[in-house]
Each structure stands twice: as C-alpha cells, then as structure tokens.
C-alpha cells in the first residue's frame, strides 16, 4: 500500500472535482454525500494499509525502490512523485530542488488516521445535518469538505516545507470558504458581522501567521540549503542556536495563526459562522491542529532552540487559561466550544513546548475525538432546537434527545479529564511534562483544566438539565437526529471513551503505546547537550494524576452546584463582581483592542496611502498631463499666430500693396496718359536740369 501514498490526498481531491463540477446540477443528492464520504473512506483504508506497511522495519527496507525511499530505523517512507521546483546548484555544488514528495512516518500516520477517520465520520454526519440545504449548496458543501480533506492530507504527508505550505494554505482557503458558506447571512447581530466577514477575518488573521511560516521557511532555506524537512532536521544541530530560535519562532508565528494561539486566536470563535460539521472537522479536530503538527514535525529544530520552546510553552499555557476564562461567560453553544478549542490547542502547545511532543500529539488525537463529538453533539442539539444556539434558551434536553445526550456526556467527561476517559490521560501527560519543566507552567495547565471542567459542566447542565427554557413551538419540533448523525456520534463516543488506552502512563503499570510509536520521530535528532528530562518518580506522577483528577471533579462539582442545584448563584456572582464579569463576558475586549490598536491605525495608514495615491501620485501624473496640455497650447498658439501669421503677413502685404497699386489702375485711359505726360515731363526736366551742370 506504500506505493499508493499519492492516492491518499488525491482521492478526496477527485471527490472534490466530481462534486464540484457535476454535483450542483447532475448528481442526485444521495450520490453527492456518498461520493464524498466514500472518497474519504478510501483514503482512510489506503492510509491504514500504508501505516501497516511502515510498521515492520524489515518489510519496509525491502519495499524501497522506484519512487519510494525508506528509512527502516525510523519507520519512515518517502514517495517522491516529481521534481516540483528545480532551483539550481548552490555555490557549494549541492543540487537545490524541491520535490513533490509525501512522507509517511509515525507522526504523519497518527495525523492521517485522525484526519481521515474523524473526517469520514463527519462526512457521514453531514449527510444528515445538511439534508435541508438546497442541492447546489449541498453539493458545494461536500465539494469544499473534500477539498479540505485533500489539502489537509497534503499538509500532513508533505515531505518538504513547501508541500506542507501548499496544504497549509489550502486548508486555510477551505476554512475561509466554509466559514462563509452561508455568505448571505448575518452571523453576529450585535456587530453586524456577516458570515462572509467571519470568513475574511479568519483568512486575514491566518495570513499574518502564514507570513511567519514563510519567513521561517525562507530562513531555513537560506541557512540549511534545503527545504526537505528531514534534510533540515538533520542539520538542526549545526545551524546554531540563533538560527534555530529565529526559524522556530517564525514557524511558531504561523502555528499561532493556524492553531489559534494568543495573539492570533480571534478568528476561531468567529469561525463558528460555518455549518457545525465544519466547526467539528476544521475548527476543532483537524485544521487547527496543523500548527501543533508543524511544531511537532519540526521538534528537533525546537529542541535546539530552548528559548523558542519556552515561548511555545508559555504562549500555549497562557492561551489555555485565557480562552477558558472567556469560555466561562459565552452563551452561544458553539462559541463555548470554540473557546474550549482555543484553550485545548493551548494545551497541546504547552505540552509540545515543555518537550512533550508526543503528549501534544496524544492530546491532539484525543481532542479530535471528544471535540469533534462535542461539536457534532452541539450540531445535533441545534438541529433538534430548530437552529437555536443560545444555551440560555435550552435546558432539560436529556429526555428529548437521549442518544445525543449520552454521547455528549462521554465527551463532557472526557474533556473535563475524568478517569479513565481519553482526555484524562492526554491532559495528564501534558501536565506531567509541564511539571517537569516548571511548576508555574503546571499551574497554568492545572488552572486551565479546572476552568475547562467548570465551563463544560456549565454548558452540559444548561443544555441538558433543569427547566426547559424554550417555547412551545420549539418544544413541538424537538426531535432526535437521523441515524446518519447518531452513528458517527456513537463511534466518536467510543473513541473518546477509549482513546486514552493508547497513552496510559507507565506509572499505572501499562505501556504508553502511542509514546513508543512516536518515539522514533522525536528522537530522530536528539538535542545536543540537553538531556531529556528525567522521568518523574512513579509516586509523584501518581500524585499529580490524583491532583488533576481532583481538579476535574471539583470543576464539575462547582458547575453542578452553580448551574444545576443553585441556578441563582451565577446571577448573584455576576452582580457582585460586575466589572470582572463584564470584562470576561466581553471576551476581554480583545477584538475591540485589536480594532483600536491595530485596525484603526491600519485603516488610517490605508487612508493616508489612498490620499497620497490620489493627490500626490495622481497629482504628479495629472501635472504631467497639464504640462503637456500647456505645452501643446503654446505650440498651437505659436503655430497659429507666428507660423501662420508669417504666412498671412505675406498675403496681407501683397494684398495691401495690390490695394495701393489698384488705385492707379483706374481703367480711365486719360489718367494713364496724364501719368505718361507727367513722367515725360519729369524725365525731361531732370535731363535738362542735370545737363546744365
């Protein structure tokens, strides 16, 4: 199956082409959904086959040949399809070129399975969720979704940074297209933001990050002389700390944009303008984890740049707490989940930044399961509520939609970190890494964990428990979702429940399967001089686990007290600390601050540039025009009055002279004769007078 590596991104791309071209008019509705889902399913199966093929080093070594090169020791296979950018030969004589190549190793294997697996489930779910859309929109939706899968798989499989970047930009494009899917609708009543605006916001915010990614890429090319990821990582030790730090930080700027970290997280909550399956697939499970993936992919580079690594950890930890705080006061079910996603992405960054790259990837995976489940569950709730998204208008839904409720409980407990669900293990591993790095980072992580448990409990109790706060009309329509939506929920619930077994810490007497699987990737180039942090003592590790478990339980307990038992507490609480509450509910006014601090000066700059353009540049052009015009007037004047004047003067002179001479020509013969006589008289007189002397 390794030979079919190229087919993994291509299959969804074909689905995109078919659905995009034929879907809106020719294909029946049922075929559109099935085609899109099958394309992803086939990708998933091919991925499974390929991943099985890299597991065995002996078979992998034997598989090399043709377009495939393999590195059996690291379980890596690279398929070079064609030379994409032949650049030339460097001064040192090395051939510079960028190949279009796909690389499969344990890290991309995990990503592949998450992307195609969760992606497939969400495709199936979308068949039910989008069933009410008109057919062209339905086909457009699945076409975009398939294009997204193709791009995400390119990103994951790319063996060199430019190929990764193609996927990186591609998923950004799809994100933009899908956020603005309902481009004619208003998304935020208070600010008048439309869905199209939300898409633009996501796209432009990502652009800022992409600039960093690109600069990092160029810096690496300039210093390492190659863009092949393994080529760069092999040289990470010789590049020097300065270059490594700069490149790692620049790439992290890109990761901040894509993975919604402070300060570039603002687009993700507004990305909820897209349909819910999109939020689940792109803005929770897969695309937003691309930043984490890139950081992990470049792990050896980061290990040579301690400062960059620390930045990653601090930004991640800060984001985890900050976003969780905002999540406390959101009332839109999807917005809560969006801030939760930002917070959990911060967690992943925190894990990666503390050196626990496999912990980051582990959390990425479990998060993909439970967050996709949460979003799809939220979608099911919204579906049941006829489009209502405000959790204040829900309540008591557990009786009406039992399947959704059951799966939601699993996801809720998993994200809160309750033993033995998947979230517990992944979160705990991150916290263990953070503890090894610094007690402060651990504190950030633990605080985030508490907040997460609390706001998720708030969400859960407000939506599913207590008094039903919706009107009769809505109650009449409340219904469980169709089977195409419930089955993916159940599968994801199973994954969210059991996904943690892949990473049970050794302190509990099991094997950390995922950690061992990923080890070859992160040990590819061990950091020189910096020994890996020693393992924590088993007792301490168990103690930390107990603490994080207690934190989660306490968070849930508080949530239960606040929102299920004593619903009046939050209101009094909000009144007593009104300022603080408004600050949090107003999302710390980050959007407003960006408006004032960045956008307003930027617009002013734009206006100034526009003014400069209109008056100075255009002025210069117009001035040139006026000068030409003036010159031509002068030239015309000279021509008319001087050149023509001279010509006319000749004519006038002749005419004047003729006028004078004409007077003599009277036509009267006698006057001529008189003249003759006079002439003769004068001539004779002159003759006679001169003769005398």
């Amino acid at each position: 199956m390794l030979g079919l590596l190229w087919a993994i991104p291509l299959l969804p791309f074909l689905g995109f082409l078919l659905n995009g071209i034929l879907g809106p008019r020719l294909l029946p509705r049922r075929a559109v959904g099935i085609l899109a889902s099958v394309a992803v399913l086939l990708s998933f199966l091919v991925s499974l086959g390929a991943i099985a093929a890299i597991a065995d080093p002996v078979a992998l070594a034997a598989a090399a040949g043709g377009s495939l090169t393999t590195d059996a020791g690291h379980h890596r296979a690279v398929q070079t399809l064609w030379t994409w950018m032949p650049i030339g030969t460097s001064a040192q004589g090395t051939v510079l070129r960028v190949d279009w190549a796909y690389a499969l190793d344990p890290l991309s294997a995990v990503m592949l399975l998450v992307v195609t697996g969760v992606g497939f489930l969400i495709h199936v779910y979308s068949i039910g969720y989008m069933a009410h859309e008109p057919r062209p929109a339905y086909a457009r939706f699945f076409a975009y979704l398939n294009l997204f899968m193709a791009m995400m798989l390119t990103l994951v499989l790319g063996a060199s940074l430019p190929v990764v970047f193609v996927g990186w930009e591609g998923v950004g494009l799809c994100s933009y297209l899908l956020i603005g899917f309902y481009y004619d609708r208003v998304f935020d009543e208070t600010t008048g933001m439309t869905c199209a605006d939300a898409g633009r916001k996501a796209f432009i915010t990502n652009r800022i990050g992409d600039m960093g990614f690109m600069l990092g890429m160029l810096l690496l090319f300039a210093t390492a002389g190659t863009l092949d990821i393994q080529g760069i990582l092999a040289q990470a030790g010789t590049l020097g700390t300065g270059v490594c730090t700069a490149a790692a930080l620049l790439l992290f700027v890109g990761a901040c944009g894509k993975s919604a970290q402070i300060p570039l997280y603002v687009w993700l909550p507004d990305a909820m303008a897209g349909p819910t399956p999109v939020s689940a697939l792109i803005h929770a499970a897969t695309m937003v984890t691309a930043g984490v993936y890139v950081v992990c992919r470049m792990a050896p580079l980061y290990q040579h740049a301690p400062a960059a690594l620390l930045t990653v950890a601090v930004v991640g930890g800060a984001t985890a707490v900050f976003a969780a705080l905002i999540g406390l006061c959101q009332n839109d079910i999807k917005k809560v989940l969006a801030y939760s996603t930002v917070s959990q992405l911060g967690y992943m960054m925190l894990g990666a930044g503390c050196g626990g790259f496999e912990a980051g990837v582990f959390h990425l995976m479990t998060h993909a399961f439970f967050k996709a489940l949460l979003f799809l569950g939220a979608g099911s709730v919204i579906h049941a509520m006829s489009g209502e998204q405000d959790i204040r208008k829900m309540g008591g839904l557990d009786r009406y939609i039992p399947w959704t409720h059951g799966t939601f409980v699993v996801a809720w407990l998993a994200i809160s970190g309750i033993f033995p669900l998947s979230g517990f293990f992944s979160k705990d591993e991150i916290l263990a890494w953070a503890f090894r790095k610094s007690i402060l980072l651990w504190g950030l992580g633990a605080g985030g964990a508490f907040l997460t448990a609390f706001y998720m409990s708030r969400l859960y109790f407000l939506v599913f428990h207590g008094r039903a706060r919706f009107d009769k009309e809505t109650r009449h329509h409340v219904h469980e979702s169709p089977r195409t939506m419930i089955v993916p929920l159940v599968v994801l619930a199973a994954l969210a429940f059991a996904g943690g077994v892949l990473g049970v810490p050794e302190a509990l007497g099991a094997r950390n399967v995922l950690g061992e699987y990923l080890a070859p990737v992160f040990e590819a180039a061990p950091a020189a001089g910096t020994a890996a942090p020693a393992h924590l003592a088993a007792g301490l590790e168990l103690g930390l686990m107990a603490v994080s478990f207690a934190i989660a339980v306490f968070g849930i307990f508080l949530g239960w007290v606040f929102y299920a038992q004593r619903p009046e507490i939050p209101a009094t609480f909000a009144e007593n600390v009104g300022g603080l509450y408004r600050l949090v509910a107003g999302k710390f006014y980050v959007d407003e601050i960006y408006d004032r601090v960045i956008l307003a000066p930027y617009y002013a700059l734009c206006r100034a540039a526009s003014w400069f353009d209109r008056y100075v540049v255009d002025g210069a052009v117009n001035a040139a025009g006026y000068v030409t015009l003036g010159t031509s007037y002068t030239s015309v004047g000279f021509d008319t009055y001087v050149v023509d004047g001279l010509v006319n003067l000749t004519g006038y002179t002749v005419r004047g002279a003729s006028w004078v001479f004409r007077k003599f020509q009277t036509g009267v013969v006698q006057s001529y004769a008189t003249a003759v006589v006079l002439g003769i008289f004068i001539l004779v007189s002159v003759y006679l007078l001169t003769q005398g002397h």
Partner: protein
Amino acid sequence: MPVPPSHVLIFSLLLFSIGMLGVLTRRNAIIILMSIELMMNAANINFIAFSRQLNNLAGQVFGVFTIAVAAGEVAIGLAVVLALFRNRDTIYVDEVHVMKG
C-alpha cells in the same frame, strides 16, 4: 524774310500743348482723336521746320508719311469709337473703364 525756326518751334509747341490738353481733359472720344491730330500736326510742323533749316528733304518725306499714317490711324480710331458706341451706348472715355483694377 524767312520765319525763324524758334517761332515755328514755339508755334508747334503751343499746338502740341493744346492737343495734349485736349487728349487729357476731354471726355468725348472723337474730340480726343481730333486732339491727337493736332499733336501729330504739331510734330509735322517741327519736321518741316527742321527740314527747311537743315536743307534735308527727309523731314518733309517724314511729314507726308506721317499724314498718310494719320489717315489710317483716324480710320481705325473712328472704327473703334463706332464699335464702342454700339456696345456701350456712349463715347465718353471716362465711362469706359472695364480695365479698372
């Protein structure tokens, strides 16, 4: 007693002057022709006078020749005047100025 040449010259001068004034001042074409005759005859008198003074017959021959030519000239002149009158109903030369510029 022979008439001195100076008298003859003064006479012919007066005659010529009268003819010339007639040519220049009269409107009637016929009078003008007549005035031209006067001037020609003044010239003839000069020829005769100098012929006698210098004893050379060429002057007298020239006089006779002039009279003969003058007869032709009068014939043509009258014919022109006649044609003029037929065409323009006038023989006043100041009314005939088609050549005015």
